[in-house]
């Protein structure tokens, strides 16, 4: 009767979509222990506290060449935007009556998001092709274009999470568990 009990549990879950799908018996446990190597390979997400940022560092000065070579075609040489998003300037336009520019400098709340996103998804035509040093370099250059850091400031695992983004305090967590 194992199968029948499971089926009844499943039906209950279907009827009460939002309810917990309690089973009469435990579901099977078929997950395999995840090898440490697999986790290291795929654990690329970087939260605001910078946990998981890799070794390496760069300045905006070093980042300019990376940006021109790998980013500027879509985002413009100064991050002014081209076929794809504008990355720089726009500070003070969030309430502008005519035009608003939500850029890294005017809008993004955390600098760690920039490193995370560039490393996971950029450039569009060749994700994962930048070294960690190059990601730090591009990150530093975009922060510099937005006048958030100086041209020779070193960006690494310690300094990146410490960067205070201009619009950080404007974000309100609206999530209220039901």
């Amino acid at each position, binding site marked *: 009767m194992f199968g029948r009990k*499971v089926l009844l*549990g*499943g039906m209950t*879950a*279907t009827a009460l*979509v*939002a*309810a*917990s*799908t309690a*089973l009469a018996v435990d*579901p*099977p*446990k*078929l*997950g*395999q*222990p*995840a*090898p440490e190597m*697999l*986790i290291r390979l*795929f*654990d*690329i*997400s*970087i*939260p*605001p506290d910078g946990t998981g940022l890799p070794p390496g560092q760069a300045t905006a000065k070093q980042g300019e060449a990376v940006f021109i070579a790998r980013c500027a*075609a*879509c985002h413009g040489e100064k991050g002014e935007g081209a*076929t*794809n998003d504008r990355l720089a300037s726009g500070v003070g336009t*969030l*309430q502008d009556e005519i035009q*608003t520019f*939500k850029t*890294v400098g005017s*809008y*993004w*709340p*955390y600098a*760690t*998001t920039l490193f*995370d*996103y560039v490393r*996971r*998804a950029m450039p*569009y*035509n060749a*994700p994962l092709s930048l070294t960690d040093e190059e990601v730090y370099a591009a990150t530093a250059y975009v922060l510099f274009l937005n006048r958030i850091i100086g041209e020779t400031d070193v960006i690494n695992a310690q300094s990146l999470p410490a960067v205070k983004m201009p*619009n950080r305090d*404007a*974000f*309100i*967590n*609206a*999530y209220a*568990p*039901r």
Partner: protein
Amino acid sequence: MAKTPNEAQPFADAEPVAANGLLHRRLFLSGGAFFAGASALSGVLGARPASAQMATVPDWRKEPGKSFTPYGVPSRFEEPVQRLVTVRAPSYPSPGAGSSRTPLHLLEGIITPSGLHFERSHSGVPDIDPDRHRLLIHGLVRQPLVFDLESLMRYPRVSAIHFIECAGNSGGGWAAQPPVGFVATMHGLLSCSEWTGVPLHYLLEEAGIDPKAKWILAEGIDAAAMSRSVPLDKCLGDAMVALFQNGERIRPEQGYPMRLLLPGWEGNMNVKWLHRIKVTEGPTHTKDETSKYTELMPDGKSMQFTFPMEVKSVITRPSEGINMQGPGFYEISGFAWSGNGKIKRVDVSADGGASWAEAALQEPIASRALTRFRLPWQWDGREVILQSRATDETGAVQPTRAELIGSKGIKNAYHYNGITTWEVRASGLVKNVWA
């Protein structure tokens, strides 16, 4: 004087319940009235002179048809029923970042055919070999686990009908001028399927959740590795690792071989090509939950993590491009939905919101699913302003565009759920307008 077909109306004796010819929904709900109407309607059609073509036996009656096929496709005459795809220059550098839209105006019922489900992707549709795909669960768990598809297929499954709506759907509503085009142009980032899969909490509980855990990060294995943070309580509720869509395995555009399904929550969070779940203490603040999919308010603040899609409806017949064919009887019909539960009622107005008639809701009325509404209408041929207004089971009522903009401003870009207004002109032309 002999009655012309347009004057011989099946519901001519029906009492209007709101201005400009809106009739009582009971004409659809009660069998008797409906069949009375239907027989009168067939009388109308019978009164039309048959064309010479109709009086000949068609070719397909005179020879056997095609033999059997392993996978059926729509009639060749239905070729125009397609997703709306944005045409871009061949030189456009990121053709896989964008969307295609469901042709809502050409569909019936509530289920979107899988091949017409809207697409939204950030770096194209990956061609995933299911045998090489893995789902990794790690982070704040007792034992990090990895699942292959074969294992996941052995878990008990659940099925449920749910809509998925892009958080940016209807975003044209924030603009100063109404978008021009079919209803799909503005509202087509919306689809509804029967999803089947494994409740996510089975897998999380198997890995053992650390008491400190409050969120997860869900990530796809597309070239953008699209990722979103999700509160743990949703993951332990109705969240599902979906494997099937409308009875068959999920389409590549929808996340083959597996996607996260978070019923009622903004489409972007229903991570496609799901390959990694990291259990975390707080949100990761990814690109798609900070720079995008956050609601910029008039005071310059931004609301973050506004997950459920709010109560909403839209009339799809008539709608822009689905014009009127002269005065007479019409069925007004459309979709209503809410990310917070079931639709409780839909009201329709033909006078710009001054008077309302309650529409009939077609079964099934499922939680966080599209609901089909219908209302009989006797159009006298004069210009009218058509609107629909949905109410969900929490009591939330769909706002007018003015009310929405009054509270959220015009720079929000997401979560637009204002009432849609169709101007029906005397010529029969239907236009999207701001009321």
